[in-house]
């Protein structure tokens, strides 16, 4: 990207959940390139190779915390860590998520509760525990602090055998609008918007495509990639960086009048 590293987030602090891979990792990298300090969370142990690799590459601008987004106590630890290390927070990207596919009559209650816990409870808890600090820090920023909730185009339209994921991402979309109206009504300096990626080359997508191959939907993952690309007006899938650039736009002052809104980054998939 031609404007990478213009340091438009200098002095800002961000939390990114699910920050070790995929869209989360790209967002962390972009924010650091723009001058932000980032706290990333994920499920890996703090001494794991993935953590060492990411922190080694990014350097002192980032710190890592093992945190399960479904655990309220873990979010309290994240809030304490951010307060102690930075004393401020301007950007929260509720990115951690999982998927679940299958015929609705075969989904177990346990699997349903798990995806709702990660995709919905996680967004609620992250918001709940970080809002007090963000409300304070937002006073110094044009447009205030910014919450970016990663939904999906599956939060806008239904898809065959994706009902649980559809429900969880739809919840993220409207939770975002609810808090946006709430913060604005109370004149709390926090904006909230949802981000709706289409098909993006991420580890989660690869795992999902492999599951479809295993269940006999396609012969190999490449066939599914070609099929999705063929159904996308832009004719391809996205790279994580192309979602991170939208997450950057929503984090910086350029989007200061945007709240309660959504950005769809899907190559035209849902316009048809």
């Amino acid at each position, binding site marked *: *990207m*031609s*404007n990478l590293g*213009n340091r438009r987030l200098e002095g800002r602090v961000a939390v990114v959940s699910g920050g070790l891979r995929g869209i989360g990792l790209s967002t962390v990298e972009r924010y650091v390139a723009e001058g932000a300090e980032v706290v990333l969370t994920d499920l890996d142990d703090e001494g794991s190779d993935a953590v060492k690799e990411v922190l080694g590459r990014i350097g002192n601008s980032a710190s890592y915390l093992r945190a399960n987004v479904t655990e309220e106590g873990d979010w309290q630890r994240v809030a304490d860590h951010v307060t102690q290390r930075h004393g401020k927070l301007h950007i929260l990207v509720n990115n951690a998520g999982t998927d679940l596919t299958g015929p609705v009559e075969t989904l177990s209650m346990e699997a349903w509760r798990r995806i709702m816990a990660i995709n919905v409870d996680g967004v609620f808890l992250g918001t709940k525990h970080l809002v007090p600090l963000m409300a304070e820090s937002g006073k110094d920023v044009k447009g205030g602090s910014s919450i970016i909730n990663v939904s999906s185009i599956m939060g806008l339209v239904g898809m065959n055998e994706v009902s649980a994921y559809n429900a969880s991402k739809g919840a993220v979309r409207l939770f975002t*609008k*609810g808090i*946006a*109206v709430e913060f*604005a*009504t109370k*004149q709390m300096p926090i904006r909230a918007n949802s981000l709706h990626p*289409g098909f993006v080359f991420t580890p989660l997508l690869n795992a999902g495509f492999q599951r479809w191959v295993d269940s006999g939907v396609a012969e190999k993952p490449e066939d599914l990639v070609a099929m999705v690309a063929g159904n*996308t*007006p*832009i*004719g391809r899938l*996205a*790279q994580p960086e*192309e*979602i991170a*650039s*939208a997450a*950057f*736009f929503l984090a910086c*002052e*350029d*989007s*200061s*009048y*945007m*709240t*309660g*809104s*959504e*950005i*769809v*980054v*899907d*190559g*035209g*998939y*849902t*316009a*048809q």
Partner: protein
Amino acid sequence: MANRLEGKVALVTGGTSGIGAGTVERLASEGAKVVFTGRNEDAAKSICDATGATFVKHAVDDAEGWAGVMEHIASKHGRLDIAFANAGTEHGDASVEDVTVENWNAIVGVNQTGAMLTVQHAIRMMKDNPGGATGSVIINSSMNAHRAMGNYVSYSVTKAAAVALAKSAAIHCGNQGYKIRVNAILPGVVETAMIRGIIEASGDEAGTRAIYEGMAPLKRMGEVEEIAGLVAYLGSDEAAFVSGSEIVIDGATTAGMMGV
């Protein structure tokens, strides 16, 4: 501002005031070469002096005049990368019961046909860009595409049409294999010179201003620069995977109800 749009050529219709003028300024500040259209030559001159942009006097609904606009861009810059279909009006609008067919046709002419002509001419030039068919077209719709106004039927209907125009054009470009993206933006109430004029002429400046500011839960109008920032994002390569989208920028006005 960093040169995110260096090497790009941009067209802005209705660029002599309001969101259009703010966008001319923003795109130029990011390195784009900007051509803008409109009818107010005096206003255009000072914008040209301030930004280095060039002006072509043209009303967006003048179908024959489009050839001259595109000829200016072709001869001066040889390509087109960004087109902002911004020109719009609500002049003479009323409720469906009261609107005259002349006023309805005039508003449809500018907001709907004018936007279509902008997208059409932009795509025709962008598809022949040196190096391949690339570009980004942004249509200025309105939050009223989602929430209609009873006393502005023509405006509400044409702004909804603008969203369908963006989606249809985006899909067409995909079908043709063009790397041309088309998106709509849906601003809320923005504090333009036009809105300021309405406030000043109302006879109750404080009261009228409070009504406009109270429409958004954020309790303020948008600034021209805030809309221009979104246009710049969509015009840049940052938004390379964004097409057929409609982006609301309204301080949460249409996100829900304000409650009690």
